[in-house]
């Protein structure tokens, strides 16, 4: 157990190092931070001086070393374009992204699981076929296109829902929430739907195939043979058995929700991490970009590690045997 734990931790550490290198390389060579920090009229000598002071003229390995050291200390520096500490900015934006991701995940679970159960139990009914078709359309429409169409319909044509932002937010301690105000709740509907749509179809299909598989097992056949009611068989036995993989995989999908939030947040101007990241790309704001990358990677690695450990605890033989679906 200890050896396994240490090995996994070391591997995770290695992954983080590679990610840091990747982030550093990417952002060191994309765009010119100096051009972004100064105005059009700033003289050349000023630019050169700034470049020197920022250490952008030093050898690359030195810059990378500095980068790692600062990251380990939890110092991500000041944003080039905003002039504020990056970690503060991230903390400020985190609630928006987490709330959106959470609502989207809940939405996809609450709607996706029943749909999946239904289509699994009654594969031949017309409603199942409707569900399956809808889910296919959901997978086939690009996220950004769904968002645009929703804005056009509910925001502009019908005027029912706000088209951007979080609405009014309430601060509770350091956390800002939009879930306690009417405008905040209205604002989250379209983005959460857009973001949850892909996960919903994914979960529905997963539940469906798990149900189909479980219903075929001897265990269910025996249950039926014992004379249990359909209801008890379906929900007491079959569903319960499908839930373990569903929950695990959903957990892993949280990572992809966070990544897809970049697109959704862009379309709806949702003031979260994804929007901050994309705006940072446009502004060539290196500290924000690399910090986002490292934070997100850390998040993914932690999820991965947790799932690995859980599997190990549940069944040591299962160690590496798990299937994760990639997003589009």
């Amino acid at each position: 157990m200890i050896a396994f734990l240490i090995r996994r931790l070391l591997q995770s550490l290695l992954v983080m190092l590679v990610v840091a290198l990747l982030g550093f390389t990417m952002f060191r060579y994309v765009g010119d931070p100096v051009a972004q920090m100064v105005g059009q009229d700033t003289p050349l000598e000023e630019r050169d001086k700034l470049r020197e002071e920022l250490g952008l003229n030093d050898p690359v390995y030195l810059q990378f070393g500095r980068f790692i050291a600062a990251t380990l200390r939890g110092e991500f520096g000041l944003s080039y374009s905003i002039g504020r500490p990056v970690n503060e900015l991230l903390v400020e934006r985190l609630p928006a992204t987490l709330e959106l991701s959470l609502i989207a995940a809940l939405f996809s679970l609450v709607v996706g699981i029943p749909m999946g159960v239904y289509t699994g139990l009654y594969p031949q009914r017309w409603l199942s076929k409707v569900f399956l078709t809808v889910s296919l359309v959901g997978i086939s429409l690009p996220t950004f296109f769904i968002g645009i169409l929703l804005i056009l319909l509910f925001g502009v044509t019908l005027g029912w829902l706000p088209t951007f932002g979080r609405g009014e937010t309430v601060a509770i301690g350091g956390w800002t929430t939009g879930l306690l105000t009417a405008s905040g709740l209205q604002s989250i509907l379209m983005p959460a739907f857009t973001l949850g749509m892909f996960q919903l179809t994914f979960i529905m299909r997963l539940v469906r195939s798990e149900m189909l598989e479980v219903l075929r097992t001897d265990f269910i056949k025996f249950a039926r043979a014992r004379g249990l009611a359909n209801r008890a068989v379906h929900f007491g036995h079959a569903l319960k058995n499908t839930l373990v993989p569903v929950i695990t995989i959903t957990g892993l999908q949280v990572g992809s929700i966070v990544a897809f939030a970049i697109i959704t947040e862009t379309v709806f101007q949702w003031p979260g991490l994804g929007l901050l990241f994309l705006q940072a790309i446009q502004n060539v704001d290196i500290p924000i970009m690399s910090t986002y990358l490292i934070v997100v990677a850390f998040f993914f690695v932690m999820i991965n590690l947790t799932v690995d450990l859980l599997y190990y605890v549940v069944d040591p033989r299962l160690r590496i045997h798990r299937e994760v679906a990639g997003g589009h």
Partner: protein
Amino acid sequence: MRLKTLLLAGVLSVAMALPGQAKTLKFAFQGTVNSMDPYNLNETFTLGFLGNIYEGLIRRGPGLEIQPALAERWEVMEPTRWRFYLRKGVKFHDGRPFTADDVLFSADRVRADGSDLKTRIAQDTKVIKIDDHTVDFVTSAPNPIIHFEWASWYIMSKSWAEENNAVKPQQATGTEENFATRHANGTGPFMLVSRETGVKTTAKVNPDWWNNAAKEHNLTEVVFTPIPSDATRVAALLSGQVDMAYPIPVQDMKRIDGNGTTRMLVGPELRTIFLGMDQSRDELLYSNVKGKNPFKDKRVREAVYRAVDVDAIKKKVMRGLSTPSAMMIAPGINGSSPDFSRLEYDPQKAKALLAEAGYADGFEVSMDCPNDRYVNDEAICIAVVGMLAKVGIKVSLNAQPKAKYFQKILAPKLDTSFYLLGWTPGSFDSWNPLYNLHACYREDEGQGKFNLGGYCNPDVDALTAEILSETDAKKRGALMREVWGKTIEDIAYVPLHQQAVAWGVGSKVELKQRADNVFRWRHVKVQ
């Protein structure tokens, strides 16, 4: 002056706000204000935004006319000595009085390391305190337009900065956040309340503003939201979530104007969009022509000029909202003249000129273009590529976000053969574009710093220098006419058009639009 100041019908029947009634203006812009420090970034929107909170010695009115602000009046004692008489009884937002010390402090701070507005006052200009409300500016050479850009040089409080450790502007290299980045203490009609960078900035009215007796606005609060996406910004305005939004993409104007609850406010902007060509290198960096530079040949430059159908661009790309220009400055800039006219669009003649210059089969060249800087910049470039293809010049387009674009084409790299750029003279005077865009490139002096194609005509340089120090307005006008004639004759650039300032406004709001695209809340009335 052809520059239209778009005043809105000022019927104020309902507009007299009841005392104590909240009047909130909510507006959206495509970019954001990253720092509240007024010397942090030399950029139109940032400075325009801060101009509602901070004030300069002078200010510009709705028609861009110079008005007294923190200086009540000024006089030229001798050509190199200007005296400014400061307004008395003015207080900063936190109650500190405004005095000559603050002006001296601000003059130092704006020229300090980390400031992006160092050009506002020459380094060798001396600022001398005569008494608490009188300040002299002594220059090394006569400069009749010394104060033209001071409407965006804002005065900060000396004692406030000292107490809060904000004496110097934010250093990009620093690790500590500067106090002035998130706090503001100006003398203007509005005071900063709260700020969430990139999300929302709130300001409220300043009850003690020196000009409250004559104020035009009826606001109590202003909420600014940055919305970078065009479609989202338009949707926010259409759905009534904001009262005002800009810029509005040209294609969406009809929709905003046609629905009864919002309307468009459009006027020509002072920015001129133009094409530049590398005329200095002996061989183009990006071309299949080796051993010579086709753009050195004036006939080739004329061919490019005549091949571009600027009216088609106006009609289709700009939807009628551009003013084709013969000059590199907009009407309304000091020195502009209606006497110049564009060369006719004539692809046949363009082909003939190319053949005459030895390029009967055309040639290939790369074009650099921004895709998020000017109105429909990328679409204009694609259109130009198509038009040049028709006369045989095969252009490959390299369109990029502005951050990468400017890094590539601006000095010192000048890494371009053919590019699209826009220019607004911050002083609203001809000298600025002549010196920056047309004077021979001299790296050490900053002269011709944005003359990316390396156009160079010593006569133009000499005339430009004369214009700077000539104090007689009439003689100055004649000089400007002469020098513009020379550059147009040389086809130094291919001017395209002035784009439009396009603001979308809700029906509850009345405001005044400025041709430099600056939004002043003090002209706003909300019903």
